[in-house]
């Protein structure tokens, strides 16, 4: 297991370096990055050059860049909020995005598992139709369309939830965003957990447990649920990406002061340094979450834990 985890960590580190290298290249090429802004005075350029080691060979420059980025010095904004350190821009926004993304993921996973398992266990016709419609809609409708329907019907017509994020009541004002983001997650998790649960129910050990005279409920609770829940972890990582993507549009819709809105704005005003810094942050977030899920899975799954390899 240690070897497996070690390998994953190594890959993660190499990936981050590769990403940094790509971003470094882009930063050199892009117009309007802090390195080649014609508005800068000679003095400022000298300071920048010294800070980023621009007068040194490219390799040294790259290493300095890597050091700065890993230290959390993501450079300064060029157009959005000139000369503001990007770290300052992100500091207040990141927690907001994380919170909403986390709850969206959590809600989607829980409801998805519930839906998937119930459909697999009860083989009820009505439930199955319900399952089919929900999962199909979940994958077919982009989260921003859901968000729009929610704000129109629940927020505007029903006056049930506030239409905008408000720092004075952050939780109630982000419910609609969380639910809209969770539906896509729910659909995928539901499909996956239904398939897993059906497989496990057909497996030999469940059959054996039944033959031993264990009741249906006990079997399900003790064996099926446990064994079909684990693989669900593996799909969560890929869902995270979808969640990040959806958050870009949704954050703007509900005026949520998160990183997604920052990225959309940075794209709109061609603030490359912010786009590049956010790309780095998103990548690191994604890689770290993948790593954690990988390790979690590896710890839980006895096949991996005892030295095998997950397929």
């Amino acid at each position: 297991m240690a070897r497996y985890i070690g390998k994953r960590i190594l890959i993660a580190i190499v990936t981050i370096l590769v990403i940094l290298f790509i971003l470094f290249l882009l930063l050199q090429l892009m117009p309007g990055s802090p390195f080649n802004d014609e508005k800068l005075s000679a003095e400022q350029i000298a300071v920048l050059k010294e800070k980023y080691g621009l007068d040194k060979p490219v390799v040294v420059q790259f290493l300095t860049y890597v050091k700065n980025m890993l230290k959390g010095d993501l450079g300064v904004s060029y157009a959005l909020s000139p000369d503001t350190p990007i770290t300052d821009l992100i500091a207040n926004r990141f927690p907001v995005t994380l919170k909403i993304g986390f709850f969206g993921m959590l809600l989607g996973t829980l409801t998805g598992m519930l839906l998937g398992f119930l459909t697999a266990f009860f083989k009820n016709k009505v439930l199955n139709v319900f399952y089919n419609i929900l999962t199909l809609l979940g994958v077919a409708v982009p989260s921003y369309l859901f968000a729009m329907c929610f704000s129109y019907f629940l927020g505007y017509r029903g006056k049930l939830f506030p239409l905008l994020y408000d720092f004075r009541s952050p939780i109630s004002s982000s419910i609609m965003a969380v639910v809209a983001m969770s539906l896509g997650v729910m659909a995928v998790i539901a499909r996956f957990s239904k398939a897993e649960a059906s497989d496990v129910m057909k497996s030999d050990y469940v059959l054996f447990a039944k033959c031993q005279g264990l009741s249906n409920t006990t079997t399900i609770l003790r064996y099926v649920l446990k064994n079909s829940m684990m693989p669900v972890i593996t799909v969560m990582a890929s869902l995270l990406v979808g969640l990040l993507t959806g958050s870009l549009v949704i954050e703007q819709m509900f005026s949520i002061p998160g990183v997604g809105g920052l990225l959309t704005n940075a794209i709109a005003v061609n603030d490359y340094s912010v786009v590049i810094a956010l790309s780095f942050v998103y990548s690191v977030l994604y890689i770290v979450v993948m790593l954690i899920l990988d390790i979690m899975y590896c710890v839980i799954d006895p096949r991996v834990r005892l030295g095998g390899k997950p397929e």
Partner: protein
Amino acid sequence: MVAKYVPKKEDFVFASDQVKKSAVKEAVSGVKHETFKRFMAQRSAVFGAVILVLLILLSLVGPYISGHSYDEQNLSYANMAPRVPLLSGLGIFDGSEDVPKTSGTITENKYETLEITDTYYLFGTDSLGRDMFARCFMGLRISLIIAFAATMINLIIGMNYGIISGYFGGATDLIMQRFIDIISSIPTLVVVTLLMLVLQPGMGSIIVALMVSGWFEMSLIARAEVLKVKELEYVQAAKTMGAGHMHIIFKDIVPNIVGKLVTQIMLSIPQAVFLEAFLSFVGLGMPAGTCSLGTLLSDGFKNAMLHPYKLLPAAIIMILLMVGCHMVAEGVKKATE
């Protein structure tokens, strides 16, 4: 009593080429037929396929059958509600709409106010008076072209990469897989955004962006299948009989992984359409003035409350496309398993 069989000389002669060919053909067509039958037996898959065929047909002819061109503006006919011949006589889709004014909802029919009751805009018009019907299907065409092109390039790159990696194994596989590990760890969102910043906005750039971010999924599937198929008896047999790598890969392995790949294609297309729409929303999509499902959606989004018919057709087309693709994918998956 059982008669003892005495082997004859002919029994030890290789079958003639003709016999071999016809037998193989029968077997292959049998498999194909069987798969097709199994696919057709699933109602939802057939339904999905019908939706897809209809959508593709409409994307080809849709822009021309409404009698209005997709980019012709007429400001005095702006924001007309849908009006459909025949149905309009029944009082539905007759061009009247409820306008939810802040002072109270009113119902109006612009076709009557403008005295053009013999004109029909099936999906209504946009704020510049362009026919939404023609625009929706023109948009669908553009989006489908983007999605197909991206998926096909993905398929070619991904399949070859996966097959080579899986078939040859060993150090080749190890290196190729580490590369994939790294590439796939970069979020799609980041790859696409960065590429769109570097490239000029347009169809080509979107295809490239979708391609760069999608090929490795295809390759992972191809590789996994190759690893399975490689160990099967018939491939081993072919190898023993001295078949070349190319022969084994293209004659023995590829036909066996087609099912999985078709499933993956059907899942990649909606993904590509999704991403295209998303790019339009964040302002990295098709340039101003062109139409695609993404630009139609993001335009319709802006005043869906005022004129829902500007968003709904494009949204429904996109959802149908998604649903169709997913149903077909599911069907192909079940039929080939």
